[in-house]
C-alpha cells in the first residue's frame, strides 16, 4: 500500500497524467487511433479476395450434338465458370478474350461426336486470358480437370478411380481469404499507427520547445521517457483489442490459441512500434519530417512482411531480407495463434526474433533520446 501511495503522489505519476491529458486533448490523435485502423481492416479484409469463381466463359459449339452439350454443361455446372455467351465463330470468341470481355473460351470442333463415336482422338481448344497470371493458372487447371472428368464419364468407367485424393484444408476449411489478410492487416495497422503516434507525441515537444521546460523540472530522464511510453502503450494495446474485435465480429476470425500469449507478444510488438517512432523523432526536427520519414520506413516494412503477398511467393533474396523485419514475425505469430492455435512450441523462433528487436531498438532509441535531452 505504501508503494502505491508513493507512486500516486510521485513525480512519475504526475508526468504520466500530463501525457494522458495531452493526448486526450488532441482530438486528431484520438481520431488517428480509431478511424484509420478500422477503415484499413475493413477495406483490406473485404477487397482482397483471391477467389477464382464466376469467371466469364465463352463457348463456341460447332458440333451441336448431345455429346457436346453434355461437355458444355460439365464446364458450366459449377460456380467457377458462368457461361457468358454462346458464340458462333471462333473469331468472335478470340476477339472477346482479347479485349478481356471473357476470361476463357472453349471451342468444340464440328466433328466432335463423330470422332468420339469412332474412338478417334479429338482436340478441344481452350483460350485463357493470361493477363492475370494467377487466375489464368488456376482456371486452366480447372478446365483440364473438367475435360478429363468428362472423358472418364464418357468412357463409361462405372468403377471409381483407383486413387482418390481426399484433400483437407487445415486451419481454414472454407478457404476464406479474409482469415489470411486480417491478421496481416492487424500487424500493418499497429506498425503504421504505432510509429506515427509515438513519433508525433515526442517530436511535438521539440516543436513547441516544451521539452526544455520538462528538463528544467527535477524529473529524471528515465521518468520523462517512461511517462511518454506508458500512455502510448496503453492506447496502442487498445488498438490491438479494437483490431481483434473487428476481426472476430465482422470477419468471423477464429481464435484458437492462448489469449494471454497473444496479448503478451502483441505487447512486445507495440514496443517495437514505439521504439521505431521515438528513433524517428530523435532523427527528425519537425512533425512534417517525421510524417514523411515514416513513409520511407513503413512502405518496405509492410510490403516485405507477408501481410498482403505471402512470404513464400517472394524471390529468395526478399525472403531472407524479411527475416530482419519485425512485422514479418509478428504476423506469423498472429496467424499462428489465431488460425492454427499453436503456442510457443511452434512460434518460439518468431517470438525470440521479436524480443531481440525490442531490446535493440529500445536501447538505441532511448539512448538517442537521452543524449538529446542532455
Amino acid at each position, binding site marked *: 500500500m505504501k508503494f502505491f501511495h508513493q507512486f500516486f503522489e510521485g513525480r512519475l505519476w504526475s508526468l504520466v497524467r500530463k501525457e494522458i491529458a495531452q493526448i486526450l486533448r488532441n482530438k486528431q490523435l484520438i481520431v488517428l487511433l480509431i478511424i484509420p485502423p478500422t*477503415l484499413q481492416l475493413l*477495406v483490406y479484409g*473485404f*477487397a482482397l*479476395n*483471391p*477467389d*477464382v469463381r*464466376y469467371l466469364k466463359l465463352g463457348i463456341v459449339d460447332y458440333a451441336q450434338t448431345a455429346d457436346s452439350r453434355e461437355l458444355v454443361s460439365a464446364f458450366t455446372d459449377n460456380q467457377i465458370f458462368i457461361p457468358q455467351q454462346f458464340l458462333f465463330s471462333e473469331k468472335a470468341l478470340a476477339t472477346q478474350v482479347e*479485349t478481356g470481355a471473357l476470361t476463357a473460351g472453349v471451342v468444340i470442333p464440328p466433328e466432335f461426336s463423330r470422332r468420339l463415336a469412332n*474412338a478417334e*482422338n479429338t482436340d*478441344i481448344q*481452350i*483460350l*485463357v*486470358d*493470361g*493477363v492475370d*497470371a*494467377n*487466375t489464368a*493458372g*488456376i482456371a*486452366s*487447371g480447372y*478446365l483440364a*480437370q473438367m475435360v*478429363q472428368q*468428362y*472423358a*472418364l464419364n464418357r*468412357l463409361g*468407367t462405372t468403377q*471409381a478411380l*483407383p*486413387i*482418390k*485424393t*481426399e*484433400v483437407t484444408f*487445415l486451419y*481454414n476449411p472454407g*478457404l476464406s481469404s479474409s482469415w*489470411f489478410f486480417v491478421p496481416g492487416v492487424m500487424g500493418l495497422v499497429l506498425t503504421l499507427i504505432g510509429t506515427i503516434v509515438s513519433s*508525433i507525441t515526442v517530436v511535438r515537444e521539440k516543436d513547441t520547445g516544451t521539452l526544455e521546460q520538462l528538463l528544467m523540472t527535477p524529473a529524471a530522464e528515465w521518468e520523462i521517457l517512461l511517462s511518454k511510453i506508458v500512455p502510448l502503450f496503453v492506447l496502442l494495446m487498445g488498438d490491438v483489442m479494437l483490431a481483434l474485435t473487428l476481426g472476430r465480429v465482422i470477419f468471423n476470425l477464429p481464435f484458437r490459441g492462448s489469449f494471454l500469449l497473444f496479448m503478451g507478444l502483441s505487447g512486445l510488438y507495440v514496443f517495437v512500434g514505439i521504439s521505431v517512432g521515438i528513433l524517428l523523432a530523435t532523427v527528425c526536427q519537425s*512533425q512534417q*519530417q517525421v*510524417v*514523411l520519414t515514416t*513513409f520511407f520506413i513503413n512502405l518496405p516494412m509492410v510490403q516485405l512482411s507477408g501481410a*498482403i*503477398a*505471402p512470404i*513464400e*511467393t*517472394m*524471390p529468395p533474396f526478399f525472403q531472407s531480407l524479411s527475416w530482419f523485419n519485425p512485422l514479418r514475425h509478428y504476423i506469423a505469430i498472429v*496467424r499462428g495463434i489465431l488460425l492454427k492455435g499453436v503456442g510457443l512450441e*511452434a512460434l518460439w523462433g518468431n517470438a525470440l526474433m521479436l524480443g531481440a528487436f525490442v531490446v535493440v531498438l529500445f536501447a538505441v532509441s532511448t539512448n538517442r533520446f537521452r543524449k538529446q535531452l542532455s
Partner: protein
Amino acid sequence: VNGILKRILSQCIKELAQFRRDRLTLALAFLLPVMSLFIFGFAIRLEAKDIPLMVQDFDRSVLSRSYQDRLYATHQFQPVPWADIASPQQALDRGLAKAVVIVPPEFSRHIKADKPIEVQVLVDGTDANNARVIKNSIKATTNAFMQAEKLTPDTSLITPRTRIWFNPGRKEALYIVPGTFAVVLWIFPSLLAAIAMVREKEKGTILQVYASSMSAGELILGKALAYLTVALAMAVGVIGLGIIIFGLRFAGDPTPFLIGTPLYLAASVMFGLLIGVRVNEQNAAVQAVALVGFLTALLLSGFIYPLSNIPFPLSLLSNLIPARYYIVITRDAFVRGVGWAGVWWAPIAIVSIGMVFFLVARKVLSRMQVSS
C-alpha cells in the same frame, strides 16, 4: 486570357522554385517512387513456387515411391524429409511443410487388386489462394500418375489444347509491374501536391493569394501545372526503370498509354490539391493521402486480385478510382496490346474524375477568397 495564363505560369514557376529547395520532398519525389517500384515489382508475387511438401509413405513399395517421385517432379513442390514428429498435422503447425500427402500402407496392394484407395492430403489453408493452387496441382499430378501407370482408361481421347494468351509463360511480373506503375504514380504526385497546398496555408502565404486578384481556379491550375511537370519527370524515371529492369515491351499501339499517362498524372495532382484545400495541417494531408489514396489505389483498382472479386458496396466505390482505369491502359500497353479499341473509355473516365476533383477543389478554395 493573357493575364490568366501569365498568372498561372508565374504561380507554376514559383512553386517549382520552392520545390527544388526542399531536400526531403525532393527525395520523396524521386527516391521513394523508385524504391516502391522495386519492392512492389520484385516482392509481390501471388503463386508460390517450391512449396514444401511432405510425403508420409506407409506403403514403401515401388509404386508408392514412383508416386512420390512424380509429385516432386512437378517442380512446384520441394521435398521435405519426414521429420521426427508425432503427427502429420504437426508438420503444418510448425510450418515445416505447407502440405502433407499420406500414402496408406495398403496403397500398392489395393491398386494391384483393382480396389480403390484413398490418399489423404492435408493442406495448410491459411493462404487461401495457394491452398487452391496446391490442391489443383496434387490432383492433376495424381491423375497424370494414374494415366502413366495405366490405372485408368486412356482419356487422351479428348485432349484439351489450352493456349494462355498474352502471357503464355504466366510470368507474374507482367501482371504486377504495369499495375505498380498505377499505384506509384497515384500516391506520390498527389502526396507532393497536397503537401504544397497545405504548406501555403500553414505559412499563411495563402492569405496574400486570397487578397490578390488571382482566382481560386488560377491558383489551383498554377500549382497543378508545376506538380504535373514534376510528376512527368517521376513517371519517365519510374516507367523507364520498370521497362528496363523487368524487361517489359510495348505489346501494341503505345499511343493510349502515352496519352493516358499525363492525364492520369494530372488527375493524381488534382486529387492531392483537393486534399490540400480540405485539410489544414501537413500531417493531416499526408495521413489523408496515405489512407485514402494509397488504400484505394492498392486495393480497389484490381492491382492484386481481379476487380470482379470486390464485394458489393465496395465495388461501386472502385468505379471512382482512377487507378482502376489506368491499370487497364498499362496492362493493355505492355501485355494485351489491343490498343484504342479495347481501352478508349479509360482515358475518358480518368479525365472526368480529374475534372470533378478540380471543380470541387476550386469551389472549396473560392469560398475562402475575399470577394472583390
